């Protein structure tokens, strides 16, 4: 019995597998069609903006963008004029620079601060280490909307208890530094949490041997931990960069909507308000604002996905 049993199993297994392969072929057609339908649905909105942004104003106003599919060599042709117009009239050129000046430091600063803290939480011994770490993670709860007004007040007039000045009046409203600090604070809890998970899971043997070789904490951190943590740092960097670049609220509150200071998202929102029917202009403006994040995203997608899954799935 025990010898005979495997024998009949063989022939039945083969047809099952063959049947599965047949189903697979039929099934894979369904899969491909379903995937294609969802993908098309998902890119239609962006496609509409992209096509519209290259059409001349007269055409944009008189026919829907989808008509280019039946008439790809439309009479009035294609144009790049909208982009020039948006950069110039829409003030997007200046806003683009401001966005850069906000986004790059607002990405690097929280990462640096979080990396130092994460290293200390993982590899240094000090009183209150665990309590502090739990408190930091607990701050993930605070919605940033809640913090906006008190910070704005601090920036405007400082804070004091009686005559003791606790926080000096730095007049940071409308300053890049003010936005950097705000974005840093809002990004820190998640950054510390993610980086501690990563840095804490590095093998302790390498850190031990560096210590025996006479390296102090700063050297270990700088020469050893940072190079080893590049994947985690990159993942969070992309996340934070996209977040800051696409943020409207924090920039609006702390930097303001003036012509000189405003970032891309605010310039876009203003355009919608003031020239909401000039679709040729709006779509070009929208694409200018999407350009850099899309490049960053596609170039570093691998890290981004890894970072997201590291944060949300964990193992």
């Amino acid at each position, binding site marked *: 019995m025990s010898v005979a049993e495997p024998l009949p199993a063989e022939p039945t297994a083969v047809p099952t597998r063959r049947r599965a392969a047949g189903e697979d072929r039929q099934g*894979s057609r369904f899969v491909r069609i379903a995937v294609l339908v*969802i993908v098309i649905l*998902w890119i239609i*909105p*962006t496609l509409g*903006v992209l096509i*519209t942004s290259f059409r001349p104003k007269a055409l944009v*106003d008189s*026919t*829907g*963008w989808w008509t280019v599919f039946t008439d790809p060599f439309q009479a009035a042709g294609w144009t790049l004029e909208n982009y020039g117009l948006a950069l110039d009239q829409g003030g997007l050129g*200046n806003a683009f*620079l401001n966005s*850069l*000046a906000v986004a*790059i*430091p*607002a990405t*690097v*600063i929280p990462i640096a*601060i979080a990396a*130092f*803290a994460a290293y200390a939480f*993982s590899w240094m011994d000090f009183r209150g*280490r665990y309590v502090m770490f739990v408190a930091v993670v607990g*701050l993930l709860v605070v*919605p940033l*909307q*809640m*913090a906006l*007004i008190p910070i704005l007040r601090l920036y405007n007039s400082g804070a004091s208890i009686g005559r003791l000045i606790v*926080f000096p009046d730095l007049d940071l409203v409308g*300053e890049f*530094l003010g936005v950097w*600090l705000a974005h840093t604070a809002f990004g*820190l*809890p998640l950054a510390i949490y993610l980086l501690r998970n990563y840095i804490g899971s590095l093998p*302790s043997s390498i850190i031990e041997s560096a*210590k025996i070789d006479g390296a102090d*904490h*700063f050297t270990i951190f700088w020469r050893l931990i940072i190079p080893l943590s590049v994947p985690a740092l990159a993942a969070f960097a992309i996340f934070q960069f996209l977040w800051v670049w*696409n943020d*409207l*609220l924090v920039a609006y509150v702390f930097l303001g909507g003036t012509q000189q200071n405003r970032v*891309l*998202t605010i310039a876009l*929102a203003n355009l*919608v*308000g003031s020239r*909401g029917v000039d679709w040729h202009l*709006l779509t070009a403006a929208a694409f200018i*604002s*999407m350009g850099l*994040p899309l490049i960053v*995203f596609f170039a570093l*997608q691998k890290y981004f996905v890894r970072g997201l*899954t590291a944060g*949300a*799935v964990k*193992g």
Partner: protein
Amino acid sequence: VRTSNDDVGGAVGVVQEPPPTGPQTVVVSILRVVGAIAIPIVGFVILWLSYDFLRDADANRFLRVGVAIVVGVGGVFFLYWGMNRVIDFLPARYRESVRPYIFVGPALVILAVFLIYPVINTILVSLKDSLGQEYIGLDNYRFVFTNEGMLRSIRNTFGWIVIVPLLGVSIGLAFATLADRLRRGEAVAKSMIFLPMAISFAGASITWRLIFSFRPQGFGTNIGLLNGIMLGLGQDPVSWLDVKPWNNLFLIVIMVWMQTGFAMVVLSAAIKAIPDEILEAARIDGASELQVFRRIIVPSILPTIAVVTTYMVINAMKVFDIVFVMGSPETRGTEVIAERMIDWFFISNHDGRGAAIAVILFLAVIPVMVVNIRRFREEEAIR
């Protein structure tokens, strides 16, 4: 970790320099002291000068932005480096007990000033009048739960936090499962779904305004996609964003469009982590693909589904930009809680009410987050 830290003391003991002798070493240590003090001071002066330069509105645009970036990025590294130098100058006994606080200190200070203080402050302001001066008890909270626009915003937000995760997670899950079976093009298909994640809410709003665009008769051709379809079907064009209460749903669709990619990527990673043998075994036992999906895939990624759902619930709870940029929430009846808060703070200028709304938002997020953090810690314990 504990054993490693016990070793720290030993390692430091080994490293310690021999006690200094002779006048030469005195000069060296004086130089070291001077250096330790001078370097940070010079650094701060440079930072301060460049910071002043940033305030100079007449300065060249490009230069200003360039300096801003260099100062911001360089400043933070300089801060740690300088502090570390100062620590080195402390007596050796104290160095290593102070150093950890140099590493975590800046993070804790920033968090205390920018997150902990604001929470306390907002709670206090929510009990005060429109200028944030006199205490008026719970009036602001009474307002939140009686004002018509506020009640509508709470109802609408409930719609957001139910529909956004529901659609986002189910489409994301379906797509992740399907794309997993593609022989080719999985990466491309996934990045197409994921692409809207990289777009700002402001950009997305323009994108979708173009889709919902409506022109009444006599105001030109309808160039919005939806109305193009309506005309193609022989129907009258519709002013989509003014159709109450469905306009809420149209706004929700925008967020679903943006967030599904996130759900899809995370769920896809979880699906790929299911061991192939389990799936194969089920298939060989004659389970249909649907059964494999329902009985194996879904149960094994349930924890991930829960995490993604919480993340999307919190995001939906805090939604502001979409409603704000799409315009006229009050006349269209599309108010949401976070949008009301900004409105009361900045447009209607009533700090107390704005703060009360913020506190309610905070209280609403806490239970979701607590569940989430507890989950994280359980997983941590398992690992």
